[in-house]
């Protein structure tokens, strides 16, 4: 139930709804999309990436001197959790062909394909397998399947949405593998939304020129991740899963090749040495760094661990100056602040309107443009709705979804959204949702090629931890696609690589060297990374924890 002070604005939304509905049903564009110049203007003036302190130069490592997101620079300019001198690297706990770090969709897909290609696999994951952003994606997965669409049209949408900074070979892999991924997932038993004739239900995503977004209600990520996890568990002889054991450093051999990792058992506090011929980083993104203090849609474990590991081993990062804020995070009620409201709500016809009930932007601009225009509406133009806790947002007029698609459309196709708000007595079939941009996605990451190889031998990266495919802005439905396409490719190539690799003696010299570089640069901060978990302990509790020891954020 919305509080009394919002009622006046809600009335205005209701009042303007019939006219907006009429225009929407007429088939003409409900609002004129922005030109290149207009996009540029709203981005540079309102996107959080362009704030003066959003970026700073990183002082160590392969990207030294480059301007990147300040919080990421802090993370990378941190000490290791371990002292290399404490480790006897001849005492190997696990020896495997392929080590997959991360138990999300990318990691699961990589493990399955590595196994198919003859490798023995270990998945090491910080929480449970499947506890990942993959499980949470709601809206869908893109693939050019319809007759009026093609991989080339998909390519153009992706590269334009990414502001033409995307790595072309990666975009090609993404769009060409997309239909194959849909087929693979269906063969595994993922239930996509279908029309009675068997064709896929497809929707138009933001920044897309064709209906290409395949979905499984608004549980698309869950539908896929549940199946991938189940399939991983169907191969216990070939794929071993070690849960609650994040990797804290990569291992290398004396030839400078990656050779496995050191895991930390979160429960027994033991360190575990895994030697692997190929290592895949599939650790996901950085939402839990709460960049610029934003609330996030991300999973509890999204702390960019893989970036730290790869960077210390010498891998290059790409586009770490760019952060994706999802336009529609929940701004009310307070308990679900920052929660993802899937773009599918807009693809099904919901419109963003201001406190006067006026539509102020084309509802399906690329995400960074859409989010920036929401921020402009709330700040410069002062047309947002302020809550009693002082937050501000604009309305996402969801009742339009029912009026356009028929009664029951929300409960049938957006059950998660309906359920989420219903828990707080807000019926989104009748009332709009209050939204504000929320920290959503790491656009950049470790640089890879279309085989998921990094510049360090035996090290592969897939999914959100990698960078390049989305340029500086990812389109909706392309992250689910990304982790499937590149998870599979990483697994396949890692397995083939493992057949020919002969590792030499294991070392942690790269960790020593990195620490030396920090010292030489005069960075004496007490930060420790990877941080593994965010720390939400209130300061007053901390003040009483007189004998507690925190290693970074971790107690």
């Amino acid at each position, binding site marked *: 139930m919305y509080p009394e002070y919002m009622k006046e604005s809600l009335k205005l939304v209701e009042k303007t709804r019939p006219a907006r509905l009429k225009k929407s049903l007429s088939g003409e564009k409900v609002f004129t999309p922005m030109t290149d110049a207009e996009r540029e203007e709203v981005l540079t003036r309102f996107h959080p990436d362009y704030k003066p302190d959003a970026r700073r130069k990183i002082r160590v490592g392969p990207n030294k001197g480059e301007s990147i997101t300040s919080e990421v620079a802090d993370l990378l300019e941190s000490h290791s959790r371990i002292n290399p001198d404490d480790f006897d690297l001849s005492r190997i706990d696990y020896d495997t062909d392929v080590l997959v770090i991360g138990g999300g969709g990318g990691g699961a897909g990589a493990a399955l394909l590595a196994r198919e290609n003859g490798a023995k696999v270990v998945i090491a994951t910080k929480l449970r397998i499947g506890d990942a952003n993959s499980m949470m994606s709601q809206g869908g997965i893109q693939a050019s399947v319809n007759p009026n669409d093609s991989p080339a049209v998909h390519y153009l949408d992706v590269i334009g949405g990414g502001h033409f900074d995307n790595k072309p070979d990666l975009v090609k892999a993404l769009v060409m593998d997309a239909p194959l991924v849909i087929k693979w997932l269906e063969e595994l038993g993922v239930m996509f939304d279908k029309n009675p004739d068997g064709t896929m239900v497809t929707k138009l995503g933001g920044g897309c020129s064709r209906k290409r977004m395949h979905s499984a209600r608004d549980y698309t*990520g869950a539908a896929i991740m549940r199946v991938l996890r189940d399939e991983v568990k169907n191969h216990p002889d070939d794929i071993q899963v070690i849960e609650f054991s994040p990797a804290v450093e990569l291992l290398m051999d004396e030839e400078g090749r990656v050779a496995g990792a050191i895991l930390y058992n979160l429960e027994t506090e033991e360190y575990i040495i895994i030697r692997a011929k190929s290592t895949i980083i599939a650790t996901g993104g950085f939402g839990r760094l709460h960049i610029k203090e934003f609330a996030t849609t991300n999973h509890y474990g999204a702390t960019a661990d893989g970036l730290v590991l790869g960077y210390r081993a010498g891998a290059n990062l790409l586009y770490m100056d760019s952060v994706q804020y999802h336009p529609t995070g929940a701004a009310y009620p307070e*308990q679900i602040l920052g929660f993802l409201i899937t773009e599918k709500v807009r693809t099904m016809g919901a419109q963003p309107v201001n406190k006067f009930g006026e539509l102020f932007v084309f509802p399906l601009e690329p995400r960074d443009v859409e989010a920036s225009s929401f921020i402009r509406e709330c700040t410069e133009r002062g047309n947002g709705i302020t809550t009693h806790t002082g937050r501000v947002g604009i309305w996402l007029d969801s009742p339009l979804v029912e009026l356009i698609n028929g009664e029951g459309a929300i409960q049938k196709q957006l059950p998660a959204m309906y359920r989420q708000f219903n828990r707080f007595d807000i019926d989104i079939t009748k009332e709009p949702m209050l939204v504000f941009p929320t920290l959503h996605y790491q656009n950049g990451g470790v640089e890879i090629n279309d085989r998921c190889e990094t510049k360090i031998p035996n090290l592969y990266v897939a999914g959100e931890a990698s960078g390049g495919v989305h340029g500086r802005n990812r389109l909706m439905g392309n992250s689910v696609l990304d982790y499937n396409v590149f998870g599979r490719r990483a697994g396949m190539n890692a397995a083939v690589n493992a057949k020919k690799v002969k590792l030499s003696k294991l070392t942690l010299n790269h960790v020593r060297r990195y620490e030396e570089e920090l010292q030489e640069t005069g960075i004496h901060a007490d930060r420790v990374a990877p941080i593994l978990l965010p720390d939400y302990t209130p300061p007053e509790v901390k003040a009483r924890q007189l004998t507690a020891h925190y290693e970074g954020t971790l107690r």
Partner: protein
Amino acid sequence: MKENENISEEEKEAQPQKAKMIPVYIMGKRYEVPEGLTIMGAMEYAGYQLKRGCGCREGFCGACATVYRTADDYKIKTGLACQTVVEPNMYLAQIPFFPANKAIYDVDKLEPSISTFQKIYPETFRCVSCNTCTKACPQDLEVMDYIQAVIRGDIAQAADLSFDCIMCGLCAARCPAEIVQYDVGLLARRLYGKYLAKKSEYLEKRLKEIKENKYDKEIEELIHMDREPLKEKYYARDIEKR
């Protein structure tokens, strides 16, 4: 850094109000926490750093299955810690892990029929229709109905009714017949998706075209196009109507 207190500069006029404090009992111990927090938020406020029992924090992953009771009631209730708001005098505990059986199977060799369930999850057929699973479900799914659908051999209905399952395990934890409902539902959906759902003609056609290299030339041209003409092409592209 309390998550729900992160406030961006865009929201700078924010002045969170002081909330009323209420007592809750975490694993039997009393703590005072602000009203309006979720169970998860309350545990963190009390000083717990969660490892198990915390996942997506948005109601999608099922990691935070919680059992609780309120002071004036004998009934055990269930919910997700990230989705349930605390009540005064709530006694609560999370289920860190539940050792439920997950069968190992080769999905390529299964038949989409009742006999598959009889073989893989025979305990399904011990359902006594007590409806405890349905009452336990934090997603408000008709859990017993989908188990009954499996028993009747109606895989399509079982798949449909179980679709929004997040596999938190509360149904299985409460089931007197020791059925693992969420794994049964998942098997139903996998069988439906793989064998029973009608195939998409368009998808098959597109796969064939890609295999025959139909799009290679066009993609290569785009890859080698300079930024400006590429930009021009992008902004000139026609956008399909919604």
